């Protein structure tokens, strides 16, 4: 790691006042919560912040349950705490996407706010040497013709094919989440679906957050019927691996007929990827295996492979189909309305 100064503010207000904005090139200061991404990337010299602003003890921690399935989640809540919270267990996709991610040691320290902002695992971003428009704007993208087996097939551009590596964001995006943020300029709310920006021509800009802006809480609304939900994660080994492809699914069924479906795709896209067109197509249909397979086909209709990762398109289709059928086979908690 390069030398840095360590700042320990006493409050969120103080934290956003003292942080030296990181900037897209990563040359400013950085916030530090669980540190599992930031310290990793600092050891690789991909990030070289002159100062770290530690958020330990100042971020809100815990989950509050409101009326009608609304939840307010402190950004400092750890992945491990959240995975076992009763409110998340009632909508299994929210819990499953957490405990199927990382390792127990990492989940014990990684925060939910930081989890949403974890950086890509693209090897060319992490090696600090190769052409990478995300790390060094204008340098090109070595991944397009390189080792891209793990990278994205949805939402890519000629500038960048790095995938968003996280799992929980794909579950969160199903529930119309809102982020509460704080910066030197005050507080605001951001629809979670707007947080991440597809790479386009400027892959260094990953989110709409300002340089000194901090996620402080996450609000979401979880319908009762989301007790029928799954996070289907396909990976190279059974545990402790990033998704090759994944599907976050929540289903409201009337018998075998879909009243409402919610679907997001992970592992294969540049940003958390909600498949709204597929959700609309599913509504009103009887959910048979053929329909699930067609939903998978539609979810990847716009996909583009880059060589080594071509397999993610058929695998992703199957993952969606499997997720839908797994959700259908579940017995929801309150099964009175769906036999």
């Amino acid at each position, binding site marked *: *790691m390069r*030398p*840095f*100064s*360590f700042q*320990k503010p006493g409050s969120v207000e103080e934290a956003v006042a003292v942080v030296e904005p990181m900037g897209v090139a990563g040359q400013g200061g950085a916030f*530090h919560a669980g*540190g*599992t991404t930031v*310290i*990793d990337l600092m*050891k*690789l010299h991909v990030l070289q912040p002159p100062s*770290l602003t*530690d958020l*330990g003890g100042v971020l809100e921690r815990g989950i509050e349950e409101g009326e009608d399935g609304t939840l307010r989640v402190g950004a400092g809540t750890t992945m*491990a705490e959240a995975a076992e919270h009763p409110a998340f267990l009632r909508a299994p996709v929210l819990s499953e996407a957490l*405990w199927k991610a*990382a*390792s*127990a*040691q*990492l989940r*014990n*320290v990684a925060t939910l706010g930081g989890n949403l902002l974890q950086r890509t695992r693209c090897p060319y971003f992490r090696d600090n040497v190769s052409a990478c428009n995300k790390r060094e704007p204008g340098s090109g993208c070595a991944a397009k013709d390189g080792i891209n087996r793990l990278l994205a097939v949805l939402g890519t551009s000629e500038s960048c094919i790095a995938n968003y590596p996280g799992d929980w964001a794909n579950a969160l995006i199903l529930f119309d989440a809102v982020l509460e943020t704080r910066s030197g300029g005050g507080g605001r709310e951001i629809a979670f679906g707007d947080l991440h920006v597809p790479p386009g021509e400027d892959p260094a800009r990953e989110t709409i957050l300002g340089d000194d802006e901090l996620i402080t809480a996450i609000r979401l609304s979880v319908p009762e019927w989301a007790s029928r939900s799954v996070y289907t994660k396909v990976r190279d080994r*059974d*545990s*402790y691996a990033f998704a090759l492809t994944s599907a976050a699914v929540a289903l409201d069924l009337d018998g075998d007929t879909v009243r409402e479906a919610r679907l997001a795709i992970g592992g294969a896209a540049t940003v958390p990827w909600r498949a709204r067109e597929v959700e609309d197509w599913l509504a009103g249909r009887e959910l048979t295996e053929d329909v699930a397979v067609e939903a998978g086909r539609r979810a990847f209709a716009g996909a583009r492979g880059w060589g080594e990762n071509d397999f993610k398109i058929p695998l992703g289709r199957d993952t969606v189909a499997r997720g839908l059928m797994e959700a259908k086979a579940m017995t929801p908690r309150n099964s009175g309305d769906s036999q």
Partner: protein
Amino acid sequence: MATDPRSAPPDLGISRRSLLKGTAASGASAFGAFQAGAQEAEAVPAGGPEVEVEITINGRPERFTLDARTTLLDLLRERLDLTGTKVGCNHGQCGACTVLVDGTRINSCLRLAATLDGAEVTTIEGLAEAGEMHPMQQAFIDNDGFQCGYCTPGQIMSAVGCVTEGHAGSEAEIREYMSGNLCRCGAYKGIVAAVVQARDETEARGAS
């Protein structure tokens, strides 16, 4: 008079530890993807901004003035010579550096010591009580839960956390919740059996 094989080796003016330090650089290149991590563990150049923290390690509170870059792993090994905690990947991927912080298992390689003011750290050296091995240590011996032993301190600390967290309910659950600790020798069968044994003993002690 025959030499007792159990007696101390002759003093050659070089300890096992300094010998290892001397050979680390030449061995590092064999680790491929882990190379950057292996080198980094030895390289904390002087001159960075400092922080002051008080940390209780294995029951002993101590004040430290540290380069802000110092990880808990660096502090344990380089400053305190508590070398039971191992450097593996140095990037949170292998679990060899697992310790307990305030009773919770974490990767010490990714944790800045600067964040631990007031914290209580338990390492493998602090697990035994009154000279008696922790049930998890005994269980690893009883079940052959290791071969070369390099990952073992991390495995044992992680296993203690796994049982405390209540995630040792079945062999499948143990495998899932111990997946952050890699064993290149492949001693997983013995490791799972050890966790089962220690879990049962811990529960029996708690019930009595």
